[in-house]
């Protein structure tokens, strides 16, 4: 077998064949992975919900409620969880643009009486070693079981109840603000759901 000559016809044909074959292959793989991809994306949300909410048996992702707020760029998402037809908890996303490097986005799970069940960090770009410590247990545990109607969601420096992260007051403030936004939305919607 000798090498194909560099004629215009040969070049066009060989590239055409390669691109067509590659196109069909990609289409085929795309079809194969379409369903698992969607499932994986859903699973990620469900996993976050499972952590922040009490045990539930419905699919909160199905009837998510999206609320527009001037405080938040994208809409606030509200997930309601039921167990045996009883409302057991509501998860609300809250975010703040006032983090040290911009967006801090959280998912906060509330019990129906307003107590914070748990918090998951969905997105943050804070300084490693300072602001990123908001993902650590030591910082998060001070929120659990607290009810924001009595627990002031502000860092102690600003007259609130939150122990700020060492050297990361700005990140802590953004975190507190996100929780506050979520709580405000929770109060607004708790009766309507």
């Amino acid at each position, binding site marked *: *077998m*000798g*090498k*194909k*000559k*560099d*004629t215009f016809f*040969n*070049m066009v044909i*060989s*590239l055409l064949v*390669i*691109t067509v074959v*590659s196109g069909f*292959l*990609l289409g085929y*793989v*795309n079809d194969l*992975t379409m369903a*698992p*991809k969607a499932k*994986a*994306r859903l*699973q*990620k949300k469900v996993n976050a919900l499972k952590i922040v909410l009490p045990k539930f048996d419905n699919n909160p992702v199905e009837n998510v409620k999206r609320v527009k707020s001037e405080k938040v760029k994208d809409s606030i998402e509200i997930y309601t969880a039921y167990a045996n037809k009883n409302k057991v908890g509501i998860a609300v996303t809250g975010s703040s643009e006032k983090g040290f490097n911009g967006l801090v986005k959280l998912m906060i799970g509330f019990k129906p009486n307003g107590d914070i069940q748990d918090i998951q960090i969905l997105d943050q770009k804070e300084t*490693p*070693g300072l602001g990123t410590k908001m993902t*650590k*247990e*030591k910082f998060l545990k001070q929120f659990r079981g607290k009810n924001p109607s009595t627990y002031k969601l502000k860092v102690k420096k600003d007259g609130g109840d939150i122990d700020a992260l060492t050297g990361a007051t700005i990140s802590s403030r953004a975190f507190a603000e996100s929780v506050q936004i979520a709580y405000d939305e929770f109060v607004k919607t708790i009766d309507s759901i």
Partner: protein
Amino acid sequence: MVSKINQKENFIKGIVKENPTFVLLLGMCPTLGVTTSAFNGFGMGVATLFVLVMSNIVVSLVKNQIPSKVRIPAFIIIIATFVTVVEMVLEAFVPFLYEQLGIFIPLIVVNCIILGRAEAFASKNDVFSSIIDAFGMGLGFVIALTILGATRELLGNGSVFDFKLTSENANTFIIFILPPGAFIALAYLTVIFNKLTSKITG
């Protein structure tokens, strides 16, 4: 072209004498970008290994059908196809790794190791040798990235493969999981690797 290549040597060279990372210093973009943990390094290595093997097979199969003037675009399309396959499969089945590697998966296309092997080896040799070559080079890359990732994770996060070796509040060298640490770690690992291999190979 009948294979007269010593296949054992062909395989070993990618790991030791022509290690793509520590000796040839090729494919620096994923090497520096994703090795923040041992698992990420390993995952990127395996993804690259897959693309390398597949593209070497296809390139060596079609090498005589492609006019030499358009061989580079042809190789790139072949490589890009497999990279896209890897991307879709990772997103579907290993979403965690997909998120971690992010933009660096599509960038496998421009990893010079892959185009380099297609151009320098697969387009001149038979399929079997090309597969051996791809596995050698790919494994060399996997090993290098895993070592680099493990080193950075250990120094920067106090863990290896997410297995915590230090206490939760221990002070680790955060710089090593940030970009500057990648350069520092790579430089010293390259020194150590070459020192060790020069002792072995003489």
